[in-house]
């Protein structure tokens, strides 16, 4: 970065140009090579083998929203990492979970967090929840070139809408297409199984704690049928990351707290390996 400063060491003109409150726009104008999606890849090369993050689930409850993810990253048939973190706070009232190429996704999250913080500092106020969700769309769209070479990033965004007074969930596709989900959502390789599980377990009158159990059940079901999703690891005490966003802000549940819920889920699965059964009619 220092190299981009002029000989006198004064701030280059781009730094002092008024107008944009977006860090992304500033980077694009000043140092576009730092943007994750702007790197040129050689054409026609086979997709890279890089670690992939897998399943993210979210569920709303009365007074907030919950976003959770398993801890596994895979590279082909290999488990690349068993304690990867895929759910991050985006700012005080929102969180982002990532599925897809882990390296790019983590960088995208870093940039997204910075984008929101930068806006807040420049403008003195935070973006609306819709505004934040739209910024994420822009970032995913910027990554389309990489996605077409097999390095896709598919995040999920959840936050507490202070205007509407409820939790909201947004999912994305690789092209940046955004859709708001009602109740619950899942993304990543195990999402089919997680979604099936959520569909049977989700109710609109959940509390934060029961919603946490529901998402842990869903992640267990995903891990049960998808080799790329990791289940709760009792021997190493590695549990899913569960974050709760309410009017009071973002909070990541402690390992002890999640461990207790995960153990309760496992306890029941010892008797009923397929998990709780929904009524037939």
């Amino acid at each position: 970065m220092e190299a981009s400063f002029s000989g006198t060491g004064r701030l280059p003109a781009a730094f002092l140009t008024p107008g944009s409150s977006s860090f992304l726009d500033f980077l694009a104008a000043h140092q576009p090579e730092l943007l994750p999606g702007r790197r040129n890849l050689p054409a026609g090369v086979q997709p890279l083998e890089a670690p992939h993050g897998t399943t993210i689930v979210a569920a709303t409850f009365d007074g907030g929203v919950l976003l959770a993810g398993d801890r596994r990253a895979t590279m082909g048939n290999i488990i690349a990492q068993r304690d990867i973190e895929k759910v991050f706070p985006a700012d005080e009232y929102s969180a982002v979970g990532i599925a897809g190429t882990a390296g790019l996704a983590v960088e995208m999250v870093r940039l997204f967090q910075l984008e929101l913080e930068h806006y807040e500092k420049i403008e003195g106020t935070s973006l609306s929840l819709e505004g934040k969700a739209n910024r994420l769309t822009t970032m995913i769209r910027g990554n389309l070139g990489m996605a077409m070479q097999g390095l896709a990033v598919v995040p999920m965004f959840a936050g507490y809408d202070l205007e509407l007074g409820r939790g909201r969930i947004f999912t994305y596709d690789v092209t940046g297409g955004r859709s708001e989900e009602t109740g619950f959502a899942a993304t990543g390789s195990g999402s089919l199984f997680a979604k099936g599980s959520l569909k049977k377990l989700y109710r609109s009158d959940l509390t934060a704690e029961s919603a946490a159990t529901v998402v842990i059940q869903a992640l267990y079901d995903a891990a049960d049928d998808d080799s790329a999703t990791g289940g709760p690891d009792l021997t190493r005490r590695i549990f899913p990351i569960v974050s709760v966003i309410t009017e009071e802000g973002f909070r990541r549940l402690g390992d002890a707290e999640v461990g207790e819920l995960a153990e309760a889920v496992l306890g029941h699965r010892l008797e009923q390996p397929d998990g709780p059964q929904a009524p037939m009619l």
Partner: protein
Amino acid sequence: MSTPFYVSPQQAMADRAEYARKGIARGRSVVVLTYADGIVFVAENTSRALHKVSEIYDRIAFAAVGRYNEFENLRIGGVRYADLRGYSYDRADVNARGLANVYAQTLGTIFSSTGEKPYEVELIVAEVGKNPGDDQIYRLTPDGSVVDEHGSVAVGGNAESIANYLDQRHEEGLTLPEALKLAVDSLARDPNGGTARTMTPDQLEVAVLDRGRWQQRKFKRLLGTQLARLLEGDASAATDDDATPPAADGAPEGE
């Protein structure tokens, strides 16, 4: 052909310095002082929208007096500089010294370039450390000088008399209400020895860099009732729910 008048470099620089000084002296003052748990910024400012004190980064804040559009530009430049640096390296690698240096170079180049008018601004860049001894306060003048300040500093209209007043009374380890009272007294004082004005919370813009906050970002504006209580000397208003994270190990991670 007319010959241009010869103006000695000394005279040219003195004129520019005088021009900038006059611009700054027109504005109201800002004072910055250290207290036991951090650094407090107090500005006389009735506007809720146009800030004189702002956050730059996790531990760094900015205060300015003078021409609004000029210091606002510098503020945005500083936020961009800090965010870019933190993104390229790490959040821990952004510090006030580096920022003060960049501001000094920027102001200095503008001051001595004949094509540009000097900026009519005076800035303060402060960083709160892990311990009171690590706190840093830098004052930047329009000609690009950096002054490393200790304890207290004032810029703007009656800066000199306010700074003298603060120097005599400021000491290490003040509580927040004590530091705030000292700051407000120094601003309210009549430099000509008349009776002091009374200042209400509406006339003040107050912010702190509080090293006790569990959040990564230590900057916090003090507003409304909390500010009013602190001004009345209520020390319990200094600690609000920010002092502890919402859960035992719930501090945000992953940044």
